[in-house]
């Protein structure tokens, strides 16, 4: 078959060909589409979990049951599943178990740019780093055998450019032979990590490392490519492609299995080379391995940045700095300075917008969370004051409310994020009598990552009807008395309840129930328009930050194509100049 596929699709196909039969994960850019593709294979049981830890352990369980299994997440998701990773490195696996983690150098849609290779070293599990979709497919397929042969979880590390880049790949959909399901493993000394067993497992792990050390120096995944220049380049992932494009005549040591690092191979490679350059995105992981091993004719971060995403221009600049490439005199145009930026914004009709407009007007301190609603921090709404990581809104709101009792504190969190890691801090707040207001922005979908269902959606990843959690019952079952449901499109009522609750000296939870305008159904009602004669140029409607509202010649106007008819602008307009229907001008 000849097809243009993305790295994420390739990973799903690799798993299918390796006879994987179980997959779980939590959505997170740039990893989300892996399971979206996996769900098209009927032989794989696939599901979204509430968080990465749950997903990880589901897949580990399935491996112990004898089925090849994998779990997907973004880089920061592995922090949530770190507990499971560190200990499953001790238990090992039964059937092959692969942890797919997608890093986001350059933070296209993330809160940090941590490097998962360091996690592999920390947990002492092998990590594979494909450079493109074709390798992603092959590496994923191989990862399951590697996992079984060495009795270890295996990390497959992608990055945004590998996951979201598409290329032409020739492949077939034949499954590998000879990988029959195993029996459920019953082995207390292996799978029950009480200290007595864990001490022995730790020794096993160290023995495994010795074997892996041998493998990493011999595997074709780590390969030397001879070149004609007296320059060596050691690189992995997408950086390999940039280097290959810029300096194809160099000698290359291409790393595909990066932990354990192939030290003997690197010694062999660097031995007769005058100059060796390490090109790696983010942390100087390879460079440190080399220097620790006493290989001193190498330099990396001296020439290349340790932050952000690489591209051809950055790698070229580094190679020029390292004096192995001459600056090419390319002619290109300068972009005019001071062009207005176009940052992402909440969609027209987004049900989060009324909430942030209200919070802005009430001048409260708001702890935020991870999701589309993080955009509530951007001007003109500017009404989120902290966003750190998944679930941190409620716990940080707790801390701030306890520490500064004179301030009005509100925490905002989406339904998916609440179910991910928001429930436990809410329990803490209840049992410790902390008085503040939690708003659950229940749009019934994981919107930011493209509309994946969660536990309140009522359908599953395959779009089949599924049981759903009732958030109000869940919150009330904790014991919290002040629980309210609001429809944000009813602006006045919503504002009234929020105002009432922030002035109450008790913990309260407000569940805002309007669904997302994009998923699962795209909502577009009759648009609104501005009666120009009634517009007094007060700019109140502009302060809701709706992309469907423009401003020309001292009047606001509405872009009909974009307007979804949510009516928030009409609600806030002091002169009732905004009305439903199509403008007749």
């Amino acid at each position: 078959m000849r097809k243009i596929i993305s790295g994420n699709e390739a990973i799903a196909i690799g798993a299918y060909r390796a006879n994987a039969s179980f997959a779980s994960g939590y959505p997170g850019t740039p990893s989300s589409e892996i399971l979206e593709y996996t769900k098209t294979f009927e032989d794989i049981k696939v599901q979204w979990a509430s968080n990465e830890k749950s997903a990880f352990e589901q897949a580990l369980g399935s491996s112990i049951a004898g089925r090849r299994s994998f779990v997907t997440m973004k880089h920061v998701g592995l922090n949530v599943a770190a507990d499971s990773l560190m200990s499953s490195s001790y238990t090992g696996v039964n059937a092959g178990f692969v942890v797919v983690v997608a890093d986001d150098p350059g933070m296209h849609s993330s809160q940090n740019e941590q490097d998962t290779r360091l996690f592999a070293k920390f947990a002492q599990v092998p990590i594979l780093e494909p450079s493109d979709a074709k390798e992603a497919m092959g590496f994923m397929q191989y990862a399951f055998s590697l996992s079984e042969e060495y009795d270890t979880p295996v990390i497959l590390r992608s990055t945004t450019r590998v996951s979201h880049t598409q290329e032409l790949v020739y492949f077939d959909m034949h499954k590998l032979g000879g990988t029959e399901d195993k029996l459920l493993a019953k082995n207390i000394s292996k799978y029950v990590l009480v200290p007595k067993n864990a001490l022995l497992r730790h020794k096993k792990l160290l023995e495994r490392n010795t074997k892996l050390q041998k493998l990493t120096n011999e595997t074709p995944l780590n390969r030397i490519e001879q070149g004609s220049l007296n320059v060596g380049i050691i690189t992995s992932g997408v950086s390999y492609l940039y280097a290959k494009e810029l300096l194809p005549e160099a000698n290359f040591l291409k790393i595909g299995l990066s932990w354990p690092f192939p030290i003997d191979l690197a010694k062999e490679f660097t031995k007769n080379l005058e100059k060796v350059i390490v090109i790696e995105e983010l942390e100087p992981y390879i460079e440190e391995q080399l220097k620790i091993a006493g290989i001193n004719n190498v330099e990396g971060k001296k020439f290349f940045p340790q932050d952000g995403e690489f591209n051809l221009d950055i790698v070229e600049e580094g190679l020029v700095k390292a004096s192995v490439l001459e600056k090419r005199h390319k002619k290109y145009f300068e972009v005019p300075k001071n062009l207005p930026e176009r940052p992402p914004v909440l969609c027209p009709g987004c049900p989060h917008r009324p909430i942030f407009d209200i919070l802005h007007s009430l001048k409260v301190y708001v702890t935020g969370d991870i999701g589309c609603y993080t955009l509530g921090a951007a001007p003109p709404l500017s009404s989120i004051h902290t966003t750190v990581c998944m679930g941190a809104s409620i716990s940080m709101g707790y801390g701030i409310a306890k520490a500064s009792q004179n301030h009005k504190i509100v925490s905002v969190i989406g339904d998916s994020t609440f179910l991910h890691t928001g429930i436990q801090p809410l329990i803490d707040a209840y049992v410790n009598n902390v008085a503040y207001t939690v708003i659950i922005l229940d749009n019934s979908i994981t919107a930011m990552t493209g509309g994946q269902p969660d536990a309140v959606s009522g359908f599953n990843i395959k779009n089949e009807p599924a049981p759903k959690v009732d958030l109000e019952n869940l919150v009330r079952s904790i014991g919290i008395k002040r629980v309210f449901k609001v429809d944000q499109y009813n602006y006045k009522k919503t504002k009234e309840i929020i105002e009432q609750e922030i002035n109450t000296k008790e913990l309260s939870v407000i569940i805002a129930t309007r669904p997302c305008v994009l998923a699962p159904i795209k909502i577009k009602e009759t648009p609104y328009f501005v009666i120009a004669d009634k517009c007094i140029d007060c700019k109140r409607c502009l302060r809701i930050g709706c992309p469907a509202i423009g401003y020309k010649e001292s009047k606001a106007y509405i872009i009909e194509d974009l307007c979804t008819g949510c009516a928030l602008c009409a609600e806030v307009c002091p002169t009732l100049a905004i009305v439903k229907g199509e403008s007749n001008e």
Partner: protein
Amino acid sequence: MNKGIIFCGVGGDGIITASNICALALMRASFDVKKSEVHGMSQRGGSVNAFLVFGKKVYSFLPAKGSLNYMFASEKLEALRNVDYLNPDSKLLVNDRIVPIVGANIDEVQIEENLKSYSLDLKLVNFNDVAKQHNMQKAVNTIMLGYFSKIIEIDKKYFIRAISDNLSPKLIDINIEAFEIGFNLQ
């Protein structure tokens, strides 16, 4: 020699789909193709771009500045924002419209003047108006692709096949019709 295209526009306006169809058409035309794009936050009405590199054998997904031959821009400000990927020989097709930015003033005249100041081979057409005339507002980018296929000199049969293979059955006919409208536009 490889060639490259930048697709740029505003999140949600169909740039990624247009680039997908174009990539498929180039594959049908027997090129090696690599395409790079970014999902997530940038889809929410922010600036979006996708790079497509095609030729006999392509290594890097991300092109160097000044290296691209063509631009397909669904909006003028976004076209201007990405001119650093172009060079004096590049050809541009830009939809002659401005999408407002929340809280910012955009000087449309200035932007257009800037865009023209590079003396590039620039085609500025309001495809939204063309679409409106034919009552095809939902297929603006496909109309634009019809016109663009002539600029990149790729036979339209490859695009027609890409549309037929890539879109859901109920959208195929209307998109082929839209493509033809763009192709026949003078």
